[in-house]
Structures are given as C-alpha cells and as structure tokens.
C-alpha cells in the first residue's frame, strides 16, 4: 500500500484522536470519581497491544495465527513465575519475558510457516493448545487454578507500578511504542517484502526473494509484542491463569483485528476497544450477550469491508 500524504495525515489524525482519548481518560475518571473505567481501559490497552501484534502478521502477512493467545499466556507466566521465585525487577523480567516469547515464536513459527492456509491455522492452534495444557499441568505454579502474584513488577527496586495511574500510563506508553514500532516495520523495506509475499508468493520468488525468513521474523516480532501484552496483563490482574491462552482467547484476538479492519494497525486498537466495550456493555443486559454480538460482527464484516476503522475519520480501507 502506498501512503499518499493525504491518507497518511488521516491515519495520523486518527492515531492522534485515539491516543489523546487514552491519555485523557484517567483525568476524566478522576473527575467522575469512577475508578472502574481506569482498570477497564488498562485491560483494553493490553489487548490492543496483542491485537496490534496479531494485525502485523495477520493483516500484513496473511498469517492467520489461531494460537496467538499463547504468547499472552507465555508472557504472563514468565513474569509470574519469576515473581514466584522472588525476581520482581523489570530489568530481569522484561528481557526474560521477551526472550522466552521470542524463542517460542521462533521454534513454533519455523515449523508452522512450512504450511499454508488452513494448515497454518490448525498448526498454530495446536501449538497454542500445547501451551495451554502445559500451563494447566504446571502444578508447582498453580496448575488449573492459576497463580497469584503478590504485587507488581518493580522498576529498579521502586514499586511505582503499584500506583494505578502510573501503571495506566506505563501501559499506554507500551501501546504507543508497539503501535509506532509496528508502523515503522510495515513501512520499511522489510514491511514491503511482507506485504508483497501476502499478495503473491510466486512473484517474490521470481524476483529472488524467499519469503520464509521474512515471515518468520515478523512472526517472532509479533510473538514478542504479544508477550509484552501478557506481562502487562499479569501485572494488571496480579494473577495469571491458563485461561489467558485458551483458544477462545486466540479467536477473540482475531475477531478484534477483523472487527477493527484488516490491514490497519490503528484498526486493531479500535477493534480491541470496541470488542471489550461491547462485551462489557452487552453483558450487563444479558449473559447471552454473544447472541447480540455475533450478528453485529456479521454486519460489520458484510457491510464495512474495511472494518470499523473505515468508518472513522482517521480510517483507511484495507488495500
């Protein structure tokens, strides 16, 4: 896709609106005296990071990973298990989390990317389920019941993340960083190869590019980003459980990306927010909220081919 100046500024405008809303929310919540909305938005931003990471491989590389929640879980468990052994500091836990998730993505991606289409979906699902069942059988770390963290990650000995507002802005900073990194990757030479391979693998081979290594690197970047989201999720809840990596969760991540708009990173953020807000609001009315959400999703996919993002002023249709 080509960024003409007009479209670029629209995308920028959209991003500006979204991030300004996120940045101003705690102030608004303070005025309203509502703390729930801050906790809720932290959750939204964490899932937005995971959705951005999935959008990178799904929207730009056509890699439909049905096991992406595994990285949320692996990232969350990395932090929680380190904490269980008394290692709380971010200088250790963050590099370890990223390394573990990167390695998991490298090994499973190297195998999964040998396949295409529905086989890729199945094999990523299988790896995701492997991670899930591994977590349920970790009896030393809570098994099925999950594992409680008695605190949050520390920054050079400081427990500043324990403060709700500080933690909120750290998560927002992570989301912004991931969004900017993903945008940079997409617009780079690497990103062009990735998007070219999505359109025609044969064409890339014919000009001398084997897409495999590029896809694998994108897969690892996405895995590490989702791992970061997992680490933040563990901190937000101060609790981890195998449910983080269930295949339902992977499916929800795909829904977020598609709902927001395939091929738009901002769309992934909007999609994650819309999904969680709808889930929250609808589940107040009825526990069968999916009965309403399902048809809504069908309508968006049918009539808004570019997803929700194409309906917003900063939106950009999928190429």
């Amino acid at each position: 896709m080509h960024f003409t100046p007009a479209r670029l500024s629209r995308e920028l405008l959209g991003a500006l609106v979204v991030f300004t809303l996120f940045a101003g929310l705690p102030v608004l919540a303070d005025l309203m005296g509502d703390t729930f909305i801050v906790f809720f938005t932290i959750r939204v931003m964490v899932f937005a990071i995971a959705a951005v990471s999935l959008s990178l491989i799904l929207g730009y590389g056509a890699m439909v990973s049905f096991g992406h929640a595994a990285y949320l879980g692996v990232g969350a468990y990395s932090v929680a298990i380190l904490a269980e052994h008394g290692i709380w500091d971010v200088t250790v836990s963050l590099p370890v989390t990223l390394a573990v998730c990167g390695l998991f993505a490298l090994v499973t991606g190297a195998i999964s990317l040998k396949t295409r289409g529905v086989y890729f979906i199945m094999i990523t699902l299988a790896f995701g389920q492997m991670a899930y069942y591994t977590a349920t059988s970790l009896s030393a770390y809570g098994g099925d019941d999950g594992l409680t963290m008695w605190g949050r990650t520390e920054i050079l000995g400081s427990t500043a993340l324990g403060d709700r507002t500080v933690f909120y802005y750290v998560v927002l900073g992570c989301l912004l960083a991931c969004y900017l990194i993903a945008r940079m990757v997409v617009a780079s030479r690497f990103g062009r190869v990735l998007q070219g391979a999505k359109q025609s693998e044969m064409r890339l081979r014919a000009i001398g590019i084997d897409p495999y290594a590029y896809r694998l690197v994108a897969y690892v970047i996405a895995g590490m980003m989702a791992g970061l989201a997992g680490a933040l999720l563990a901190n937000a809840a101060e609790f981890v459980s195998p449910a983080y990596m269930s295949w339902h969760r992977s499916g929800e991540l795909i829904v977020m990306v598609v709902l927001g708009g395939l091929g738009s990173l901002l769309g992934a953020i909007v999609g994650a927010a819309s999904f969680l807000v709808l889930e929250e609001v609808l589940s107040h009315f009825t526990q069968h909220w999916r009965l309403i959400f399902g048809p809504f999703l069908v309508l968006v996919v049918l009539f808004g081919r570019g997803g929700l993002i194409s309906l917003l002023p900063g939106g950009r249709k999928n190429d």
Partner: protein
Amino acid sequence: MTEPILVLDDLCKAYGALKVTNHVSLDVRPGEIHAVIGPNGAGKTTLIGQISGALAPDSGRIRFDGRDVTALPMHARARAGLLRSFQITEILPAFTARENVALALQAREGHSFRFWRNVSRDAALNARADAGLAELGLETRADVRAGTLSHGEKRALELAIAMACGPKLLLLDEPMAGTGREETDRLVEVLRALKGRYAMLLVEHDMSAVFALADRISVLVYGEIVATGTPEEIRDNAKVREAYLGEEAVA
C-alpha cells in the same frame, strides 16, 4: 562462437506415462532471442517451469551463466540473473506500479531485513524505479495501483520488474498472451529495443511476433524438440510444417 548463457542438457520430465519433456536440449547465446514454439500441449509451460526452478526435471542438467543450476530453487536462480515473466500476469495488485519495480530493485540490493527507514520515502530507490518504468513507457502510471492497470500495461510492468532485477537472461512465458493486436505490436517493439541487451528465451504462441523477433527458433512437439534453426530454416522445414505450421500458419 561465445559460450551460451543458458544450456539445457537432455532434460526429461514425465507425469506418469506421459513424457512432457522428452530429452530436450537447447541453448541460448548472449544477446540472442531464442524462441520456443509448439502447439498446445507440447510441454512449453512445463519446460519453462523447469528452467525457472518451479519444477524439478526427472533427469538432465540446466547450466546458466557457467554454473549448474539444476538443484537451485527459483529465488536463487532469479538472484543469479535468470528472470522469468508469467503466462498469467503475476504482479502485486495492491502495490503501485512504482512499488512493484522498487521491490524488485530492493531484492537485487541484497537482503531486506531493514526495519528503520520508510521505504516509500527512499528517493534514490523511487528514482530508479521510475527510470525503469519510463523505459517501458509506464512513467505516467507510476502511482497507479498495479491491479487496475490495463492488461498490456501489466505485461509491460512485468517486464519492468524483471529488468529491475538485473537479468542476464529473460525467460518470457507467452508475453503476448491475451493482448490485443495493437498491444502486441507495442510489446514486439519493446522487446526489439531490448534485443542484444539481454539474452531471451521466448515461449510464444503468436507466430508473427516470434518470426519478427527471434534469431533462432526451436519447435517443441509432444515434449520433443523436432527442429532448431533460423526463422527461415524453420519456415522451410517440412517436419515443422507438418507438425505445426500447417494448421496455424502465419504469412
């Protein structure tokens, strides 16, 4: 005589009992246009597949630019300078014409594990892509999405992509397929202008184009080369007339 750039040595490929490539040997000399013609089902596409690396031959060798490339995959052959076009146009439809050519240039410049710079603002790369487009008369179409180009323009874009890769040999799989009379004439002119600059192996149905362009012609019938020679020799060859030209002769 100079060393040929491409040598097919006794290639064989069979699908079950059907011998689609039957002891095919031919060569292409530097700067030469060598055309391969043959009726439908003669095995032209299978032959192209083996030369480009999409298919593996059952036996025989392929030498390109002084080295044996029989075992190399398609992308490695492309890097060595063996560039192909496709019978059914294979471009990147969501990219602009410029981006299509720029990606080819990028591939030639080595690996693309470069994450920091915005490639669409790489002025040097874009300028070279535009120069490549201009060479094929596509300069006004640079910002148009490739998927919306006319059929003839897509054909020209495919050529521009191949040329951007720094080819030593162009393997052209029916470049005239599906083009109108006028577009065919234009493509013939384009290829004529490129003649001598690159060696070309031209597989083509359009007889007038073949006879207008080729230095040598090989005739493929049922997987076998029945004759190789200059256009005049082929025109006068009785075997060829019987097997092929008789039904589709072009004055």
